[in-house]
């Protein structure tokens, strides 16, 4: 229901999950390449996003009715594509780390069902589920990662410029695309009680996402020497596999699986919901309910392309060239376009 007003708590956790989900699934490649400085860059980017968000707040405070078509359609395309790619990756990852004997179609069936059910349930159900589960996931994630602190080697953060200053400048800037999902907050703007709630939600979600991002990223860099970095399993899974706590509590992999599953279910449902909402808003539809199923068919079709991840690996550099623009520049289109 669009009438449901998100609280600050619910909204923050919704966007923390959307932004940080990629750290449970995969670590952005460039952040790993540039080591410590990449993390410092992330801090800078967080401030940049905060600044941009602050700037657009004034714009959003103006009385206005709807988004421009360009903004809505671009958000729809980005969200649909992301959901398809993430769905593909969730299926592959669960098949690799847990349900080894099951068919990908069976695993995909679970994810697709949950995704469609989540999107159809609406923003209230999604927001409340986030408020219920995501705090536990965030706390468990940070607690489990802190369990690996004893085996971390801080010297692996050096040399400071990683693979070189040029590489850092060339690739580091596009790290900002980590925050791509944050642009969904503009779609859900009407679901906040007032501008104050909207602003605080934006700020808290960026800050908490940054903390989680940096914790996961630095722990990963300090856990594995560069010559042994490999991306077969999710980085957090690899860190958690190393955690030991005495003789009786030796394995925390299953905890990761619960965190991963719940977070991915909520992510897929929310992404599909926001995607359909962006589509509805762009074309001035009265409801987003009827666009959920057609969009989900597009997502499923794309996600079952076998070579999607190889394709993604190849074009990830091209994607990074423009994805950074989504959270930063795209809201400009609403301003320049005839958004009212």
């Amino acid at each position, binding site marked *: *229901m*669009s*009438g449901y007003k998100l609280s600050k708590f619910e909204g923050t956790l919704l966007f923390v999950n959307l932004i940080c989900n990629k750290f449970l699934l995969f670590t952005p490649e460039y952040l790993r390449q540039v080591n410590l400085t990449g993390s410092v860059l992330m801090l800078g980017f967080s401030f940049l996003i905060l600044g941009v968000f602050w700037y657009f707040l004034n714009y959003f405070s103006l009385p206005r*009715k*709807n988004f421009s078509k360009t903004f809505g359609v671009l958000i729809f395309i980005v969200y649909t594509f992301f959901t398809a790619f993430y769905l593909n990756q969730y299926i592959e990852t669960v098949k*690799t*780390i*847990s*349900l080894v*004997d*099951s068919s990908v179609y069976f695993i995909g069936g679970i994810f697709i069902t949950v995704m469609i059910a989540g999107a*159809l*349930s*609406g*923003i*209230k*159900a999604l927001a409340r589920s986030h408020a219920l589960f995501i705090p536990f996931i965030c706390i468990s994630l940070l607690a489990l990662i802190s369990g690996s602190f004893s*085996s971390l*080697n801080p*010297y*692996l953060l*050096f*040399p*400071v*410029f*990683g*693979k*070189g*200053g040029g590489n850092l400048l060339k690739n580091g800037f596009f790290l900002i695309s980590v925050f791509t999902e944050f642009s969904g907050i503009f779609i859900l703007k*009407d679901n906040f009680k007032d501008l104050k709630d909207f602003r605080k939600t934006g700020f808290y979600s960026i800050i908490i996402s940054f903390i989680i991002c940096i914790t996961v990223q630095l722990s990963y860099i300090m*856990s*594995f*020497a*560069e010559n*042994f970095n*490999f991306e*077969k*399993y999710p980085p957090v899974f690899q860190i958690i*596999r*190393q955690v*030991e706590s005495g003789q009786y509590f*030796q*394995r925390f992999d299953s905890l990761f699986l619960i965190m991963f599953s719940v977070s991915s279910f909520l992510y897929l449902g929310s992404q599909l*919901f926001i995607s*359909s*909402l962006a589509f*509805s*808003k762009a074309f*001035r*539809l*009265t*409801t*987003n*309910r009827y666009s959920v199923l057609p969009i989900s068919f597009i997502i499923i079709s794309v996600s079952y392309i076998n070579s999607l991840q190889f394709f993604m690996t190849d074009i990830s550099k091209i994607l990074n060239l423009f994805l950074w623009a989504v959270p930063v520049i795209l809201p400009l289109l609403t301003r320049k376009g005839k958004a009212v």
Partner: protein
Amino acid sequence: MGSTCYSASPYKERESCMKKIILIIFVILLSGCSNQKDIDNTAYVVGLGVDVLKNDDFLITFLTALPTDNKEINTKSVSYSIPSKTIYSASNNLTSILNKKIDFSHCRIIVFSQSVAEKGLSFFKKTLLNEKSFRPDTLSAVSQINAYDYLNSDAIKESSNPAGYFELMFNSKNSPDTVTFTIKDFYTKKDVVIPLIDSSGIKGSVILKDGKFISYLSKRQTMVYKILTGDFNHSYLSFDEDLSVLSLSRDKKPDITVWGKNKDKVNITLYLSGEVITDNTSKDYTTFVNLLKTECENFITFTKKDLNCDILGIYDKSRIYFADEKQLKDFDFYRHFPNYNFKINIIYRPIITSGRKFDL
């Protein structure tokens, strides 16, 4: 077309909470059946041995647990040996022999015979780290005798809990001259020290450089290595010159600092405490501390000059002085390492117990 957008939802406000809870409980309970593992259909490998055969294939020995409560059966483990090119193809062969699924998640040790270590463990290193079923905390050791013979030795066969036996035996906290090596150490270290075993137990350790065996370390050298790395807790040290015994403990982890214009000076500060526990010695504790310092210096000279291997992790510590990885690579650490100047400083805190004080 209305200007307001509605996201309709079938979410019902008054839906019973109880129904959802029951549904969740059913989902959790039923999902457990889909990928069930029956203990009777699974062979749990608790130890793995790798020997090299004459035709360059490997002889893979699987020590599997025999879970039984029958008190007449004394053996708690059974071993199977299969010649093969890799661990995983041997595992497939074992599956067809036993008609059971092979599970490595309880594997506590991987024993490589010395001939395998001499050929190099790089191949195994990668395959072990890339396979989920091997836990990162799986222990590893090099055996002077065949790995097959070690895993079939009486001590292991007669042990009521082979996995527990390995855990106790390779626990570095229990013994001052035992080093613990787990496969996750391959993640971060280039040159490693790995325990050396034979049928009678731990004999010392060996140094692997880039995964290849290069030298033995005696038990005493292993203890000095542990003192230098801070893995050491407590030990009784005796020196050849005297019958005196020094009870030595670690106060805190040693500081290792790399400095100098050419990054070739290393300061190692050891924080130790202890007391001389022999009554009839005329020597002060400073004599023993100096002897220990000399021993540490000799050990470092042996590893850097004779072996050119960096088991203390100096390479990692010098990373801080380079701007990027190209510079670090161009520096060619191993060319300079034998000429590094090490300075060892022992900060020793003598323990003076109150009883002894009043005796004076």
